């Protein structure tokens, strides 16, 4: 772990132990790190494990879920070894989180001001008066024109975009080193979305934060992230800097995702498709988790799950097409097999 690294997640495994002895491997061996001032995007479809990864970092996993293995190093300490009390002093203070639905994340019976003041008094030991003053400053910073009044308003009096601004004010109140934003703009309209994302970037610069941005929207990733991790079936299948990922995607899933996206800039008669559906987390195929949907599937893919391997500098892929030396032979045999089938 270098000085530059803020967060390092190693071999994180979060399983959900369901009824009838099924085990849903929601997060299954995730490794990544976040550097200072960097925006890392975790992208994937529903059920890919991106949200559970972030909740595991914050240790907000409830039964029947459990973190069964791995380490989360933050500031040189393993968060998974900490007591509940120690963890409580980190949440909202050193690591803050923004959720998708601001209406459910904000407490409806407290004013916006109260919810910021609570955080400041707990973590920063401010007096009521200091905290209120700071709350107004923060609300101004995130773009409330009438902050002195808004501080005494309740969440239901604000629009969706304004609620998300209030969430950001709460999240940055203790100047955290790391901000985790879980689909922060998915519930918002596009014109509001760009306001909120621009604001998050501005705050990130201002407080020199690192940002983990969780989203399903590849457009948002392309515009705001530095590095990208594509998740599928509870694992990272491809990770690289943003430019490489969008210009030279390697994993068939990444390719498929990009091709299935309709573009606002150009005309296409038919969209690319990924056949089939995401397999359920309690019943992944034996080999590669994408094997049942992959257009380039080989015999080997059904036998074992490939490792995430670095194929060029800071570009890693979990796929036998790139990490297997005898892929040619394999590919040929799978083709003949397909032909004989049809």
């Amino acid at each position, binding site marked *: 772990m270098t000085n530059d690294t803020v967060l390092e997640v190693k071999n994180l495994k979060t399983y959900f132990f369901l009824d009838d002895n099924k085990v849903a491997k929601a997060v299954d061996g995730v490794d990544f790190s976040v550097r200072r001032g960097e925006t890392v995007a975790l992208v994937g479809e529903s059920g890919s494990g991106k949200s559970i990864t972030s909740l595991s970092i914050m240790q907000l996993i409830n039964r029947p879920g459990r973190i069964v293995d791995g380490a989360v190093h933050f500031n040189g300490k393993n968060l998974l070894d900490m007591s509940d009390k120690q963890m409580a002093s980190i949440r909202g203070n050193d690591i803050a989180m923004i959720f998708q639905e601001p209406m459910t994340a904000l407490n409806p019976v407290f004013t916006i001001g109260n919810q910021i003041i609570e955080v400041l008094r707990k973590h920063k030991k401010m007096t009521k008066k200091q905290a209120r003053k700071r709350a107004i400053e923060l609300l101004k910073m995130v773009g409330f024109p009438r902050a002195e009044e808004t501080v005494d308003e309740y969440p239901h009096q604000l629009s969706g975009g304004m609620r998300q601004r209030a969430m950001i004010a709460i999240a940055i109140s203790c100047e955290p080193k790391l901000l985790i934003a879980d689909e922060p703009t998915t519930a918002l309209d596009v014109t509001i979305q*760009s306001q909120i994302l621009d604001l998050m970037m501005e705050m990130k610069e201002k407080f020199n934060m690192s940002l983990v941005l969780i989203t399903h929207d590849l457009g948002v990733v392309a515009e705001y992230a530095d590095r990208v991790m594509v998740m599928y079936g509870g694992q990272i299948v491809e990770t690289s800097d943003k430019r490489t990922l969008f210009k030279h995607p390697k994993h068939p899933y990444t390719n498929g995702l990009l091709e299935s996206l309709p573009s606002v800039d150009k005309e296409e008669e038919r969209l690319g498709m*990924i056949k089939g559906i995401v397999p359920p987390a309690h019943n992944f195929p034996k080999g590669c988790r994408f094997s049942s949907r992959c257009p380039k599937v080989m015999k080997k893919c059904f036998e074992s799950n490939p490792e995430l391997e670095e194929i060029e500098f800071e570009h890693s892929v979990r796929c036998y097409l790139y990490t297997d030396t005898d892929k040619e032979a394999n590919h040929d045999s799978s083709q003949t097999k397909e032909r004989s089938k049809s």
Partner: protein
Amino acid sequence: MTVLKQKKDQKADQQTIVKVENLKKYFPIKGGILKRTIGHVKAVDDVSFEIKKGETLGVVGESGSGKSTLGRMILRLLEPTEGKIVFEDQDITHLSNRKMRSLRKDMQIVFQDPFASLNSKMSIREIIEEPLLVQTSMSKKERQEKVVSLLEKVGLQPDDRVKYPHEFSGGQRQRISIARALAINPKFIIGDEPVSALDVSIQAQVLNLMKDLQDEFDLTYLFISHDLSVVRHISDRVAVMYLGRIVELASKKEIYENPLHPYTQALLSSIPTTDIDRKKEKITLSGDLPSPSNPPSGCAFRTRCPLVHERCAEERPEFNDMGEGHFVACHLFDKPSIRDEEVKQEKDMH
């Protein structure tokens, strides 16, 4: 010329299937102890357009723009406050429920949430069979065969008919909704955010399916969505709504390559795209959508418009045809337009 191009050209000459004139829907706001009407939410406020047979008209707008209300009014699932709806040359605005029912076999709707729009206690066979029972006099055997052929059409297995909705994923449920809508051979289908709840890979499957079915059955679509990329993909023409009004309506090419209304321009510029080399001028709109119960005077967009001028507060802009069916409601494009005057003034000065 490709076959496809020819087909699109043919579409242009075809007759109008749906025509909407000055359609309005005002929802009353009740207040006080006596629950008197104290105001109105103008969900749809004076909207007119036509849909040609075989085409797809996309309707885009943010939440609260009235796009869903518009769709529901056309099917008479909501009663319009004012205006006229014509379906195949028949004024259906005031048709009785009974007459409407027989007409509904020609017009169907696919809703956004495939979890809420399928009855969880009915098997897939019962769900798809129901419109056949209501609208046709098919025998049991004929209905069975129809259900199987519909399931195959939408890419599901015939064996799936004995299953229940909870056994399917979101994308598969949306296929079932589409099969149900197709059961009675409708001419016109409204899709109210039909792919918004789906993941991108599944969204692409459903969009491709909708296109294939349109070609096969010569369907006309009204496609309602907040997603401009999806609308671009599926539509022939696009209407942009803002606060209950259509602010711009044009062919897909015109809307995306030559947007005139400042709102359309802002909307297009604020979509994040995956083309990381694209350098674009980003127009960030300030503020939120105003409340439709108390819309701004004059042009509804004026409170957020970067090009606002005095006249916008005073008069509501007319919906003008700028040529080749490109309609826009903005004072910048009035006739004689301010632009022309400015140009004239500049010329005079020289």
